[in-house]
């Protein structure tokens, strides 16, 4: 392509540093926000004002920030749940199901101890909260392991299995919490019984303790992939399964393990949202909404290129924009769905900009000058 005396050409990148990838992503976010401002303009709203509202509510407001953080924890856990199998070249589309299963397992602990529906209990929180945590992780891990086992033993496509399990678990939740279900709320409102006050998760500085586990998981996973034997085996299997089995890496063990680990984290997200986030403390009637939100783990995982540390800022941004979008929709009287539309535009732009991970635009001047004005630098 030629513009004036300049000529532009696409060139393949030989390598991509982490910082270059980050700057491309930031550029993409700016472009997405510019694109989305068209929607505000069509609605007769000043986009700058709208964005100021969104960002200040999501990231600085004393009411908004805790909401953002809770959603961030949820998204980060789901992103990691996607990333672990992703590094093994496998696609976990089943965070939704694993998330539900984890929630059910956590509430199952209460049911087993006979405190379903009771508003108080004598049993110590020091016993029950860890049990709920473990149960949630095991529940998610169990559902994940089905996909991992089927992949490892029979080479059944993991996308299909995880997807199907999502539907099964969705209706299982419905069966358990609606009229006549084991976990039914005594009020019969189509949601589960509530957590006794004493079992609410501890909160520090307006943030639930689950943030430590989510951040810890991301850091540990990063270390695992970078340094450990297991991480090496997962990566080798992910890049070339043939070569991995040549090197003695088990074709059965790796898919099973990654889905167990991923499922455990998604299951833990179930504990987080329905037993730790203030103001919820039950499997909510709109549980499907959180299930859909779990899919954003895929997006965050892909944008961060399977890097668990990079998933932290990405999940934070997505969490914040979904909260801020919903807020601005109410405040400025816009029609329904601004938050998801904003996430959608952001997602498409980020994915489109991954083109620049592989290519750069090179600009020549006619005098054979070699100016590298890569978009973006």
């Amino acid at each position: 392509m030629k513009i004036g005396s300049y000529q532009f050409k696409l060139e393949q990148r030989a390598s991509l540093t982490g910082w270059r990838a980050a700057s491309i992503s930031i550029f993409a976010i700016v472009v997405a926000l510019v694109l989305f401002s068209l929607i505000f303009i069509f609605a007769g709203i000043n986009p700058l004002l709208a964005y100021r509202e969104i960002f200040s509510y999501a990231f600085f407001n004393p009411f908004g920030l805790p909401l953002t953080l809770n959603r961030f924890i949820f998204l980060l856990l789901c992103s990691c749940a996607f990333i672990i199998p992703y590094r093994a070249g496998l696609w976990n589309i089943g965070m939704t199901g694993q998330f539900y299963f984890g929630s059910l397992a956590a509430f199952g602990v209460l049911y087993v101890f006979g405190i379903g529906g009771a508003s108080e209990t004598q049993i110590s929180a020091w016993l029950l909260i860890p049990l709920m945590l473990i149960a949630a992780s095991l529940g998610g891990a169990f559902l994940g392991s089905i996909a991992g086992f089927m992949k490892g033993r029979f080479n059944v496509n993991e996308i299909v299995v995880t997807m199907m399990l999502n539907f099964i678990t969705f209706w299982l939740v419905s069966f358990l919490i609606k009229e006549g279900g084991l976990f039914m709320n005594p009020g019969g409102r189509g949601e589960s019984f509530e957590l006794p006050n004493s079992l609410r998760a501890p909160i520090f500085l307006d943030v639930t303790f689950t943030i430590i586990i989510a951040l810890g998981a991301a850091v540990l996973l990063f270390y695992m992939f970078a340094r450990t034997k297991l991480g090496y085996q997962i990566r080798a299997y992910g890049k070339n399964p043939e070569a991995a089995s040549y090197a003695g890496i088990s074709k059965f063990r790796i898919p099973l393990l990654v889905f167990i680990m991923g499922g455990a984290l998604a299951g833990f997200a179930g504990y987080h949202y329905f037993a730790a986030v203030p103001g919820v403390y039950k499997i909510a009637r709109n549980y499907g909404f959180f299930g859909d939100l779990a899919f954003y783990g895929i997006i965050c995982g892909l944008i961060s290129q399977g890097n668990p540390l990079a998933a932290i800022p990405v999940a934070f941004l997505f969490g914040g924009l979904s909260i801020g979008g919903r807020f601005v929709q109410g405040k400025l009287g816009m029609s329904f769905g601004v938050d998801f539309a904003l996430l959608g535009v952001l997602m498409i732009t980020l994915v489109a900009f991954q083109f620049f991970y592989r290519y750069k635009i090179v600009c020549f001047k006619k005098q054979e000058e070699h100016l590298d004005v890569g978009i973006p630098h």
Partner: protein
Amino acid sequence: MIANDQIDFEIKAGEIHAILGENGAGKTTLMKILFGEYQPDEGEIYISRKLVNFRSCLDAIDLGIGMVHQHRKLVPAHSVIENIILGHPRAGTILNISRAEKEINELCQKYGFNIDLKAKVWQLSEGEKQVVEILKALYRGAEILILDEPTSALAPTETEKLLESIKAMAKDDLAIVPFITHKLPIVLAISDRVTVLRRGRVVSTMDTKDATERSLAMEMVGREVIFRLERTEVEKGETILEVKDLSALSNKGLIALDSVSFSIREGEIFGIAGIAGNGQGELVEALAGLRNLEGGKILLDGQDITQSTALERWQAGIGYIPADRIHVGSIGDFSLVENTAMNYYFDEAYSRKGTLDYDKIRSLTEEIITEYGVLTPGPDTTAKSLSGGNLQKLILARVLSRKPRLVIAHLPTQGLDIGATEFVRNKLMEAKQENAGILLISEDLDEVLSLSDRVAPIYEGRFMDIIPGHEVKRESVGAMCAGIYLDEEEV
């Protein structure tokens, strides 16, 4: 990078003009330019004294250039005739299959091709597929036929047939241009003239009658090459590997390996000669623990390892050099350090409590790079950026540095240039001198015969015989690879 630098040569009608060069000498680029796939940055091509300019392969085909690819470009599920007329201008609207069949059959008779036009391409052998490609080019009216590594995948008998057909075509005023990497005898046998490329330049063009194997090799490599590798005799020690009645199925579920028994001792190279697809791949995978057995037993140093996993076999001292360097032997996106780790991640000396000691693996990789002369910017480059020969050096070094008891070398020099081939063979000899047992599987008969202490020709999953190295006769082994026992008088 400049792959072709100021190349000049001409091809006459009725001439067989071989282009010879090592890997990376620029053959592929030149071929693609001649066939219109690449456009040259500089230079001109003339056909029958007319300047031509190829914008794509179609232009080249229209001007009478035919290409026979090494990696066949055929539709496997279609029949031979369908593949031949695919893309033919006359096949555009209404097919007249019977007329095409008649014309193609005439071509077959004229040049001595024997092929069933109704057969599906996936059922054909490599040689037959090549015939289909040649017929396709001829039927489109090719006057200049480019053959990419024409004999690389062929059985000896198929090679002979092909050479006869090529000569018949040349008599008919077709120009034949075979591109060849390392089969010098083939060049000498068929070509009228030969052009040697080295590092993207033409080093010489000469009449074949003035050339010898040695002179061609010198032109290609740029230095004297020692052809005959001296087989050093080593005192044979204990039995390392013992295989009893091993049977295995192929991926299609057919018997690929049928009750094979043999043993290998310390300081011995046991060579298996044969044409691809006669059970060699299955045998290697069965020994490496990558394929389930139908029956039989494998003993390593007296221990039964029949049920052991691939990892346990590595740890027990089997070192496996796979034939497919790119898809099996290495991980393209991994750095050289991580590729070295493929054979070391399980080694206690290179890990601590589940954490890999990347520093130690890195220094090992650096040692490998210097000792084996792997050409690379450094240990952090990806494996896919290495050329075939350098990748093979890395894999070989990685495996041999473990000092394995048993080395399984499957097609260790396939596709390598002369220099790298010489290097790999010497390293295998060194391993033998260090008392390893070596299983060498090769389709290159000369390689097996010159390296092995004992030779087993394999045919349809069975050993035809096991012959001590000094008693081997080339002709009889060659015949056995095709399933034929020669009478003593014939030899």
